[in-house]
C-alpha cells in the first residue's frame, strides 16, 4: 500500500474513503473486556458482602483482589491507543461534559479508590497481624499498609465492617455505572448502525458480569490446584447459578436486539446480514455457540445437582468458554461495528497488526499484566482461608462478612490482650 498508512483496511462495496483507516483497533476490544472482568469479579464479592450469600465466602476477598488487579489495567489499552497519550489528562482537567468519554477518568478513578478502600477494610485485620509478625522490607510494607491503625479490637472491627458494607453498597452501582458507561460509549454513537442500540449498555453490563464470573471460576480453580486444596462445592454451585442467571438475561437481550433489528428491516439491513454472515461469522459463532453451550452445561449442572470433581471440571470449562465467548462478543461489537461502513453500502475488513503499538503482542502483554499483579497481590495479602479441605465442616455458623477475621488472623488478637488488656492503648507493639 502506497502512502503513509501501512494498514489500510480492504473493503467491498462502497465505503467512505476515510473509513479505510480503521479508528479503533484491537486495543479497544480488550478495553471493555478488561472492564467487564472487573465488574463481574466485583459483583461476586458483593453477593457475599452485601447480600450475605454465604456460599461465596471462599472467593469473596479473592474477587476483590481480582477486581482491583484488572482495574489497574483498564486505562492502559486506552493510553496505548491515544495519538497523544501525554495529553490524556486534558480530559480530566478540562472535561467536555457532553462526551461520555470525559467521565471515564472520574468513573474509573472513583472505582479504583473504592476498591482499594474496600480491600483495605477487608484485609485490615490481616495486615495488622502481618505487620506484627513480618520483619524486613515486607514488614515495613505491611506497617505502611496499616496506615497507622493497628487496633483490631471487636469495636474497631465492627466499625471496619460498617464501612466495608457501605463501600460494597456503593460499589454495586459504581460497578454497574463503570460498565454501563462503556456500553453507553458505543450505544450512543448514532453514526454506527451496529452500535447504536438502547440495549447496548445492558448487554455490555450483563455480559461483563458473566465474563467476570467466568474469570473468577477459572482463577479460583487454578489457585486451588496450585495450593493443593479442595474447591468449595457450595461456592461452585453458587457461581454456577450466578453465571446461569446472568447469562440467560444476556442471551435473551442479545437475541431480542438482533430480532428487532431484522424484524424492523431498516435500510441497510442487507449489509448487516452480510456482516454477520461474512466478516464476523466466526466471532458470532464463538459468541453464540460458546454462550449457548455454557448455558446448556450450567443448566445440566444445576438440574443434575452435580458435585465434586466433575462439577469443578465442567465449571472450569464453562468459565473459560464464557471468557472467550465474551471476548468474541467485544470483538464483534467493536470491530464489527467499524467493519460495517457508515454508507451501509460496503464492508471493510480489519486485520490486526501483530507488532506495532496497537498490535496483538501489545494486547497480549497488557492482558498478562493483571494476572501478574493479582499473583503479587495474593502473595502480599492472602485472600484464602487457612484450612482447605476441612474448612467447610468447620465453617463459622453465620459468616456474614468476608472481613470477619479468619481463624488464623483472629487468633493473635485474641491472645495478645492477655498482655495488654487495655483496648485504649493498642500501640503496644514494640
Amino acid at each position, binding site marked *: 500500500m502506497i502512502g503513509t*498508512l501501512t494498514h489500510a483496511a480492504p473493503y467491498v462495496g462502497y465505503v467512505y*474513503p476515510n473509513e*479505510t483507516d480503521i479508528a479503533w483497533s484491537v486495543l479497544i476490544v480488550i478495553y471493555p473486556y478488561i472492564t467487564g472482568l472487573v465488574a463481574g469479579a466485583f459483583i461476586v464479592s458483593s453477593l457475599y458482602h452485601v447480600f450475605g450469600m454465604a456460599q461465596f465466602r471462599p472467593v469473596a476477598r479473592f474477587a476483590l483482589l481480582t477486581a482491583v488487579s484488572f482495574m489497574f489495567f483498564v486505562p492502559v489499552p486506552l493510553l496505548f491507543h491515544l495519538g497523544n497519550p501525554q495529553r490524556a489528562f486534558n480530559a480530566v482537567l*478540562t472535561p*467536555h461534559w*457532553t462526551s461520555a468519554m470525559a467521565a471515564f477518568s472520574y468513573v474509573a478513578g472513583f472505582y479504583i479508590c473504592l476498591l482499594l478502600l474496600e480491600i483495605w477494610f477487608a484485609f485490615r485485620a490481616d495486615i495488622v497481624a502481618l505487620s506484627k509478625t513480618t520483619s524486613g522490607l515486607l514488614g515495613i510494607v505491611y506497617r505502611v499498609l496499616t496506615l497507622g491503625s493497628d487496633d483490631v479490637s471487636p469495636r474497631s472491627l465492627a466499625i471496619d465492617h460498617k464501612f466495608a458494607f457501605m463501600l460494597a453498597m456503593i460499589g454495586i452501582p459504581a460497578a454497574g455505572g463503570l460498565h454501563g458507561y462503556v456500553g453507553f460509549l458505543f450505544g450512543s454513537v448514532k453514526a454506527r448502525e451496529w452500535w447504536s442500540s438502547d440495549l447496548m449498555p445492558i448487554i455490555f453490563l450483563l455480559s461483563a458480569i458473566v465474563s467476570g464470573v467466568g474469570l473468577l471460576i477459572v482463577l479460583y480453580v487454578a489457585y486451588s490446584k496450585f495450593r493443593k486444596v479442595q474447591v468449595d462445592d457450595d461456592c461452585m454451585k453458587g457461581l454456577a447459578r450466578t453465571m446461569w442467571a446472568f447469562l440467560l438475561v444476556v442471551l435473551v437481550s442479545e437475541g431480542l436486539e438482533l430480532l428487532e433489528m431484522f424484524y424492523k428491516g431498516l435500510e441497510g439491513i442487507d449489509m448487516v446480514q452480510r456482516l454477520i454472515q461474512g466478516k464476523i461469522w466466526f466471532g458470532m459463532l464463538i459468541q453464540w455457540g460458546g454462550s449457548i453451550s455454557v448455558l446448556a452445561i450450567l443448566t445440566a449442572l444445576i438440574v443434575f445437582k452435580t458435585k465434586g470433581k466433575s462439577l469443578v471440571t465442567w465449571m472450569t470449562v464453562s468459565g473459560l468458554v464464557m471468557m472467550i465467548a465474551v471476548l468474541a462478543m467485544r470483538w464483534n461489537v467493536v470491530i464489527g461495528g467499524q467493519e460495517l461502513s457508515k454508507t451501509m*453500502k460496503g464492508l471493510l475488513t480489519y486485520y490486526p497488526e501483530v507488532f506495532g503499538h496497537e498490535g496483538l503482542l501489545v494486547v497480549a502483554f497488557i492482558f498478562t499484566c493483571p494476572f501478574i499483579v493479582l499473583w503479587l497481590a495474593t502473595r502480599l495479602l492472602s485472600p484464602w482461608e487457612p484450612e482447605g479441605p476441612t474448612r467447610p465442616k468447620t465453617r463459622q455458623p453465620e459468616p456474614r462478612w468476608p472481613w470477619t477475621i479468619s481463624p488464623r488472623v483472629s487468633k493473635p488478637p485474641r491472645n495478645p490482650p492477655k498482655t495488654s488488656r487495655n483496648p485504649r492503648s493498642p500501640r503496644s507493639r514494640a
Partner: protein
Amino acid sequence: MTNQDTKVGKEASDLSRRNFLRILSIGTASAGAMVSAGSLMAKEQVTESAAEPPPPKIPNYDWNKHKWAFGVDATRCIGCLRCVEACKAENGVAQDAHHFRTWVERYVYLEGEDKPHIDCQNDPQNIAASGSEREFRFDNRYKDAKVEKAFFVPKLCNHCTHPACVQVCPTGATYQTKDGVVLIDHSYCIGCQYCVQACPYGVREYNHVLGVTDKCTWCYHRITKGLLPACVEVCPVEARVFGDRNDPQSPISLFLRNNRVEVLKPETGNAPNVFYVGIDREVS
C-alpha cells in the same frame, strides 16, 4: 466607501480570480500534471495585484457577524477532482488514498440495474488509472457499458449545526465557532478518535504524524480573510458554492433561495450546513 460597495468590489475581484483560476485549473487538468500547489501559488500572486479593495484581515474579522454555509450543485460536477487535490495541497492532508477532507463520489446506473455502482477517487482502480496516490482521477471503466444515469457528488464536512463529533469530544478540542464552522485544536486533541466514530458522514480523518484528528475547516484560514475555500476556488464548473448566509446576496444565499436543496442523512439530527442540489436517494 460603504459596506455594500466593499462587498460588490470583493465579489468582482472574486469573479475575476475565479475566472482566471478556472482557466488555469482546466489547463492543468488537461496537462495531466498535479500542479494544484503551483496554481494556488500563482493565484496568490494574481490576487495580490488584482485585488481591490484588499480583503479584510483577521484582526477585523468578527465571527459574530458571519454564518457560513456551503452549497453543492451535483448536476454541475464533472468529477475532475481538482477540489480534492487543491484541498490536499492547501491543507497539507496526507498524500495517500486513505485521508481526505473532501472527496467526490461517482454514481453510475447501468441499464437494467436498480442499484448504482458507486466509487470514489480512492478506489484501487482509480488509483491505478492515476498512477499514484498523490493525484486523482476517475478511470474510464464504464467506457463500454450502457450507462443509464450517472453523476458525481462532492463530499466534505457538513459543519453541522448540532455536530455529533463535538458532542463526543472528551476534551473539547473540537468545537464550533460562532460563525458556524467546526474546528479542531490540534494542540489539545488527545487522538482518541471518538469523533471519527461519531461523524455519520465519515469526514474525519486521522493525522498519523501529529496523532490528532483532522477534518475540513472550510479553509477557515482563508474565509476569515475574505477568500474562498480552496475547493470552491478551483472548481471549474461552480459545483461548489460558499458564502455567508447573513448576506442575502452572497452566492450561498442565492443558491439556497433559488434551489430546492437537501442535506445528507437528515435523520441523524445533526442539521448539516452543506446543502445539495441534484443528488439521488442512493446518496448517503
